[in-house]
């Protein structure tokens, strides 16, 4: 251990600090690359009382409404949007509340591959409302998407909610215009579920595979493209106080 001169030690310490700085820089850089699984914007449920909140979402057959600046392929992907402009598939909801989810569904139907998802599961009352009429089960080729919320492993408060979102008829006229794109009149589906304590994260995504535009639905392509990308047909839900 001969040459432990002060300059030496400063050099070692400086290299280590610089090195960790590089790691931090790379981490931040990776997080900011869009399209690499970036973090979509957060959309909070609107509180309607001390123990209730409402979440408004919409599903579109293309990305023009809330992904208008995406790449050439992604702009044509089906997507969930939270309002007319935000991508917002990272949902935030208050704890110990009844959450009412209202989804405006503009897309046409595709056949489910797993009839487990025909059934409404995990909602309060076991039903959901389709244009204000309750339903608990649909036929295999009725849904266009599903909203399926599942827990992370060993979650202290497991939640499993799955609601099939009935599709709009392909022949319906396009008489609604949003942000310059035309869509048919949407089906409005709403349901409710309860959240537990704060600090828990859940994931959700759609289980009705429609694939990307190239191969559509034959497995394994059904879950490619938007189905596997957060910001489109997949997201998270965090329970927190706000």
């Amino acid at each position, binding site marked *: 251990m001969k040459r432990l001169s002060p300059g030496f030690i400063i050099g070692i310490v400086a290299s280590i600090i610089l090195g960790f700085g590089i790691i931090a820089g790379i981490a931040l850089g990776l997080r900011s690359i869009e399209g690499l699984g970036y973090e979509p914007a957060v959309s909070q449920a609107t509180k309607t009382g001390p123990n209730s909140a409402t979440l408004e979402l919409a599903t579109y057959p293309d990305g023009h409404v809330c992904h208008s600046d995406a790449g050439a392929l992604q702009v044509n992907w089906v997507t969930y949007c939270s309002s007319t402009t935000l991508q917002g598939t990272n949902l935030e909801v208050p704890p110990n509340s009844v959450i009412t989810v209202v989804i405006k569904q503009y897309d046409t139907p595709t056949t489910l*591959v797993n009839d487990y998802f025909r059934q409404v599961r995990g909602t309060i009352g076991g039903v959901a409302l389709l244009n204000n009429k309750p339903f608990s089960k649909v036929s295999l080729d009725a849904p266009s998407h599903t909203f399926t919320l599942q827990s992370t492993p060993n979650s202290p408060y497991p939640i499993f909610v799955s609601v099939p979102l009935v599709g709009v008829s392909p022949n319906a006229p396009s008489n609604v215009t949003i942000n310059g794109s035309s869509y048919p009149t949407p089906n409005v589906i709403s349901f409710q579920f309860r959240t537990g304590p704060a600090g828990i994260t859940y994931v959700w995504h759609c289980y009705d*595979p429609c694939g990307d535009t190239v191969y559509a639905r034959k497995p*394994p392509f059904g*879950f490619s493209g938007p*189905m596997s990308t957060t910001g489109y047909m997949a997201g998270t839900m965090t329970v927190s106080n706000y």
Partner: protein
Amino acid sequence: MSESNTDVNTGSAAPARKEPRHLRRALIIWAVLSVIGIAVWLVVAPFILPSADSTLDSTDDFTIVLLTVLAMPVAMFVFVFLGYSLFAFRVKDRPTEDGVPLQPRPSLQIGWLGITGALCLFLLIWGLFASYQETATASSNTLVVRVSGQQWLWSFDYPQYGVSSQSQVIELPVNRPVQFVVTSEDVLHGFAIRELGVRIDANPGEVTTTSVETPTKIGNYAVNCVELCGLYHSYMWEAVNVVDKASFNSWILSQGGHL
């Protein structure tokens, strides 16, 4: 290590009497540490390994314990001889003399190959025997659970009862053989329940079947996915409940099946 058919280094200053004690000393340290290591492992193992709650997992966990017991002397051999050499034969700076030019006698070489070969053969026979035990054929009582994996969720069917699990749970009756028949809807998944010793890949377009095994304890476990399958691979978990027969039957009925 024996010195054979080479002259001892003329430059060495170590008296001849001292040399053999190195080998004996190292061997004694090796024996002692191996015994201590095995003892420590046998004491610690139950705390490290999760509980073995099926016939399959008991065999598997026991194999881990046995293999570690056998491995202890092997590992200690390397550690002890390495450490001993460092303490006994180290020089401070650039050496001014050479070491003793030892070469292994043919008997040492053959002996070493023989011992490692025997160890290897034992491991092989044990492994074959243990896995043969696990390929017990299904009895008429075997519960068959059909599992279908997709991105990123497992679905379960009990064809013998006409039930598709309505929640994200597998219920199993204790002390009854069960066999999982697994497939995938899209990409490769891995179906695994650690404490029950169940693990098999879920392949699209193919059906794979686990060995028959019997859960032996009532408890709650988890299924997880062990082949990378995309975005939410690490979220692909479900619950497994091993319950008594009466609870299992009432669960079947509650899911809309028939007994």
